[in-house]
């Protein structure tokens, strides 16, 4: 156990200090955030009004409070002008950015004129609309006001399985994509590190010394543990960045506050995530132990990655029919099961037998893959300059 801990810690230290890791965990998100911030800045400043002029020729809005809307302060200051000429002067001397003139015929034909150097922004138009609407509905009964506020009340149900989801909890529909993407990114990055670490050790010829100290199982367990911690660190770093980025965006913050994920689903998702990760990592380790160079390993890892990724390619079909034959079939094939189940879990009511069988198959595949990796390591670790053939790997498996 001590040896496994030592290897795990050594692998962890070695990988988190690599430039590639720091770049992936810190550099890339930082760059994305900076890019996003610049984009938002450009979009919001190019068309932003600082102050609006308001001229009411209809007199219907003579007493309207222009500083409040829906119980909150208006996003853009609105200044009332008695006459259009005064407002035009203010616009000319750039005291205001635009003029909104409610024409005298407004109540019969809704005529509103806007005088501005460029088109009114959506934000400004929204605020003006809210101000006008507030005064127009003020005389109506409260129930009618509420109906006007939400003329269409939707009940959200999941595809295929008809599970009802709280209308405010619609972020749940995005979870399948997010979970699958997180699984793919974490698993393949970390498994790539594992493959690299094993192939490096073969290339460095250190493996024969390690083999006289540790059993292949200890070596493999230490490496998988250490590199899982690397993957977890990377995942946590991404999640932290995402939360930091989203937290500054008010609408997204409201969505997050409304996101309710059942604990049972989270637990199952975590199990599929972990077992799926172990399975892919062990398969990558098998390749790392069998090949002679990291480059050669990447070539052989390609087909495995492709199979694991299939559910992600078919994500739209699985989301549309989460209990279809295709979805069930992919859930029961160990290589495709983790992502398929991560997609199905948030949105579908899955029969218990399917969940249990899928979990069992993935667990069995993970255990088998770890055993295979250790056996291949035993056989392949001293094959410098010549990789193990598929036949030899299978012979190792059956031995």
């Amino acid at each position, binding site marked *: 156990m001590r040896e496994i801990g*030592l290897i795990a810690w050594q692998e962890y230290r070695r990988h988190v200090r690599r430039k590639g890791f720091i770049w992936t965990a810190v550099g890339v998100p930082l760059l994305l955030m900076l890019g996003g911030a610049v984009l938002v800045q450009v979009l919001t400043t190019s068309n932003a009004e600082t102050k609006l002029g308001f001229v009411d020729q209809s007199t219907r809005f003579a007493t309207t409070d222009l500083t409040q809307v829906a119980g909150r302060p208006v996003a853009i200051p609105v200044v009332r002008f008695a006459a259009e000429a005064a407002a035009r002067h203010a616009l000319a001397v750039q005291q205001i950015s635009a003029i909104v003139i409610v024409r005298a015929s407004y109540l019969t034909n809704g005529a509103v004129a806007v005088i501005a150097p460029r088109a009114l922004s959506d934000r400004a138009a929204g605020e003006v609309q809210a101000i006008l609407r507030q005064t127009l509905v003020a005389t109506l009964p409260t129930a009618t006001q509420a109906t006007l506020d939400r003329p269409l009340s939707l009940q959200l149900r999941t595809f295929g399985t008809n599970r009802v989801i709280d209308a405010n909890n619609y972020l749940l529909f995005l979870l399948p994509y997010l979970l699958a993407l997180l699984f793919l990114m974490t698993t393949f990055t970390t498994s790539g590190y594992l493959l690299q670490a094993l192939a490096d050790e073969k290339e460095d010829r250190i493996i024969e010394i390690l083999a*006289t*100290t540790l059993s292949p199982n200890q070596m493999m367990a230490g490496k998988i543990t250490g590199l899982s911690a690397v993957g977890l660190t990377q995942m946590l770093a991404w999640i932290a960045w995402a939360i930091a980025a989203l937290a500054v965006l008010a609408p997204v913050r409201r969505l997050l506050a409304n996101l309710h994920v059942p604990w049972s689903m989270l637990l199952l998702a975590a199990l599929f995530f972990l077992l799926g990760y172990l399975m892919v990592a062990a398969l990558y380790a098998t390749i790392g132990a069998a090949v002679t160079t990291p480059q050669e390993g990447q070539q052989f890892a390609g087909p495995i990655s492709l199979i694991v990724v299939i559910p992600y390619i078919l994500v739209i079909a699985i989301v549309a029919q989460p209990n279809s034959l295709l979805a069930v079939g992919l859930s029961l094939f160990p290589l495709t099961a983790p992502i398929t189940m991560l997609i199905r879990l948030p949105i579908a009511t899955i029969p218990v037998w399917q969940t249990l069988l899928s979990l069992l198959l993935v667990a069995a595949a993970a255990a088998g893959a770890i055993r295979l990796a250790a056996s291949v390591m035993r056989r392949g670790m001293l094959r410098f300059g010549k990789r193990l053939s598929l036949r030899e790997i299978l012979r190792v498996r059956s031995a």
Partner: protein
Amino acid sequence: MSMVAVEEVSKHFGPTLAVDNVSFAVEPGEIFGLLGPNGAGKTTTIRMILDIFKPDHGRIAVFGGPLTAAARQRIGYLPEERGLYKHMPIGECLTYLATLKGLSKADAARRATAYLERVGLADVSKKKVNELSKGMQQKVQLGVALLHSPDLLIIDEPFYGLDPVNTRLVKEMLCDARDRGAAIIMSTHQMDRVEELCQRMCMFNQGRIVLYGEVSTVRHDFAPNAVVVTGSGPFGTLPGVERAEQTAQGLELWLDAATDPHTILRLIATRPEFTVERFAIATPSLDDIFIAVATGHAQIERRASPEPTPVGA
């Protein structure tokens, strides 16, 4: 109890018989030489001792039993294929590998520092392995095998790439390990090192042990019926001398079957025309024996049977 006991061990790789019914034992406090041409089965035997390969037949006991996790920690190994973490500073590399052998991190770091000082690498302890010369790498590699004071040390060509000063240093370290009771198995092609350091040896050829026992006994067993003399006089005309050859050591006199070195010595002593400065029984170097065994040429006449002698015989 023998530190290593190999009994009737065989190993095939496909159709190739790499090791054929091999038996030998290594005792505490001895340096045991493993000799033989390339591909003779030495490395395969070492890897079977270390449980990297499983033997097809036979038994191997290390410290009196199977190679357990605890037993592994008492072994130091310098493999034929040298290997270190190339991108790790050498001090860190030594410390890490020693912690895997059961030392605490503090103890491992202390021993690594002391070792690097002893072998003159203290100044480069922060350098990475791939920044060092071949000789320096060899010393670091040997440090990996020695740092945890193993009870069994298995070393393959330990003097490879070393200059005479470092060769002497490594010999001292090996003798230190032997003197504290460790058993050392040394596989090498450098026969002079075996003659110098090993008490016992075995020689492999084509997967089999062809010589096994005390180094001095092996050399004696392979000695031809010949003497070496330096001095003056017509030595080649002495009765019982078949031929005389001048060698770097002196004149080598090959004797017929009816004559032994003592007879010739007595004869020379009674004849006034001879003066003798040096008289010795001709013994072959292990180099000669190695070449003779490896090539199968009977350049050296043997007095004794080439069959391996049992341990302690």
